[in-house]
């Protein structure tokens, strides 16, 4: 196992957000985390990268507890891809991607770092934007820049926080295809928090469905994305069709909320 999350609990000001979460992630695996708003998807992602520190439980990376790692050491192994930019002051795409070398370099950046940046810009096909300001790019282009930055970290695990929520359908597919290919080719493991159940079904090897901070169901897309699970977790009546072996979800209507055990 590449990554193990063991009995992790996290609360914001004593409101529990994650309760006894256990996850295992294999090498070259793409794990999708789905669930309604507030289910704890993003919190889980942030705990794995020590952006938030869980109050209980352990997270093991290659059998080492990440709590015992220094931040820089963890940054060489785990890459985080945010949803959107919060850059206020100007930064070129090149410099943004170069930031990914921070865990590896001292004060000066070397030819090797520059080379890495160029390699990743080319891999993601964003060379033409290299000298543009990151804030001038569209959401889809920004996602590619963040993927490039995370890859220049040379991590083993990629964490994706709602990677598609700001994108049009073309960019959704493009960005997800790139990620899928990278996970395959570079033998990375990836965990993505994602809202779109159909994208999750299509791109994730395995899916975890969360509800109120707990894992409600886990397994391959077919066994997790069932009408019953969707009804109980989301409170939505849905039709699940078979689309080339992958479930395709058509939401129909919200269920009336009387004694619905999905949202205690």
């Amino acid at each position, binding site marked *: 196992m590449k990554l193990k999350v063991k009995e992790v609990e996290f609360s914001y000001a004593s409101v529990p957000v994650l309760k006894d979460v256990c996850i295992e992630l294999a090498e070259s695996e793409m794990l999708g985390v789905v669930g309604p708003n507030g289910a704890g998807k993003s919190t889980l992602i942030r705990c794995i990268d020590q*952006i938030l520190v869980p109050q209980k439980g352990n997270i093991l990376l290659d059998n080492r507890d990440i709590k015992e790692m220094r*931040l820089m050491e963890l940054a*060489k192994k*785990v890459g985080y891809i945010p949803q959107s930019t919060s*850059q206020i002051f100007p930064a070129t795409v090149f410099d943004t991607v170069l930031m990914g070398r921070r865990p590896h370099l001292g004060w000066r950046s070397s030819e090797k770092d520059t080379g890495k940046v160029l390699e990743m810009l080319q*891999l993601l096909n964003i060379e033409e934007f290299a000298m543009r300001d990151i804030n001038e790019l569209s959401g889809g282009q920004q996602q590619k820049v963040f993927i490039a930055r995370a890859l220049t970290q040379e991590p083993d695990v990629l964490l994706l926080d709602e990677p598609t929520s700001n994108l049009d359908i073309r960019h959704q597919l493009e960005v997800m295809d*790139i990620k899928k290919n990278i996970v395959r080719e570079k033998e990375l493991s990836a965990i993505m928090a994602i809202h779109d159940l159909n994208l999750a079904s299509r791109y994730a090897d395995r899916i975890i469905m969360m509800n109120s901070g707990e894992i409600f169901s886990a397994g391959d897309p077919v066994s997790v994305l069932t009408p019953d699970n969707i009804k109980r977790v989301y409170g939505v009546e849905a039709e699940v069709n078979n689309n080339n072996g992958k479930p395709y979800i058509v939401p129909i209507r919200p269920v009336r909320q009387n004694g619905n055990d999905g949202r205690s």
Partner: protein
Amino acid sequence: MTSSTETISGIGTERAEIKAQYKKFIGRKILFIISSLILIFIIAGVAATLGSYPITVTEVYSIIFHGLFQNAGTNKEIAVWNLRLPRILMGISAGVGLAIAGTMMQGILRNPLASPFTLGIASGAGFGAALAIILGAGVVAGEYLIIGNAFIFALIPTFVIIGLTRYKRATPETMILAGIAMLYIFSAATTLIQYFAEPEAVKAVVFWMVGSLGKASWDAILPVSIVLAVCVPLLMWKSWDVNVMGAGDETAKSLGVNIERTRITVMIIASLLAAAIISFTGAIGFIGLVAPHMCRMVIGGDNRFLIPASGLFGAALLLVADTIARTIIAPVILPVGVITAFMGGPLFLYLIMRRRREYW
């Protein structure tokens, strides 16, 4: 991926092209830094010729050069070495320090309005000076009463802000709001003691608060330059981490930067720098806010280049302002703080109107 279908040579030229563009961008930043440095030398040369005693530019340079080896003898030498040069050097130090302090405060707080003023440092110093001038009381006694008092009170807002972060996370919002609260508290306290003070003392406080280089002397330059020599390299060393923090707290953390510790460390160093200068010159406004923004417009946001660039540019700006302050209604010398605000305000408005986007 589409790029993998391209020919190898095609990729090679593309890479070389980006590399060349990147080198050119860095070249532009270095050029800006060198130009600012040359500008300082030219303005300093001109500034040293101005005043009641006429001296030409070439004379000034030769007097400065000779003065390095022997004591000032003639009247011209005394005017340059004992009056004009300290004022110019103080102007340069103050410009460098205030601009760099502003750059870093904006960087760590990710806020374009952060400066030694908005974080309460200037109003803290103002209260300390007012206390010393009006009540003759202070933490430090003797000749340096005003300076020492201003310095210590200037640091109080910073320590209050940092103290708060023990109870609440050190987010930019918390720190800026706490800074503004300190600004108001110290301004009110200053007004209160002015209300009960003698008119002469009130006038002295008001003059002190505007900020001027009139009190510059070799004795003042020594401590200020020591603080600069310690703080500026430390801030340069943190420039990478501050760059990464510009991408947001979560991204910075995921790239291995301890954001809260960096934020507090940089805040302390930048505050020390600003406090040391303001306690000698009074609160010279706008340099710490405007110089970093103007430099960002030209060379971008990479702090490794932005720190030296805005420092030197800030120094040039302050020298120009002081030269205007000395000549505009000569023989009356205006306090430089008035000119920086008068010059900086409209300039800043123009830049805001001219910018293309919501950011530089």
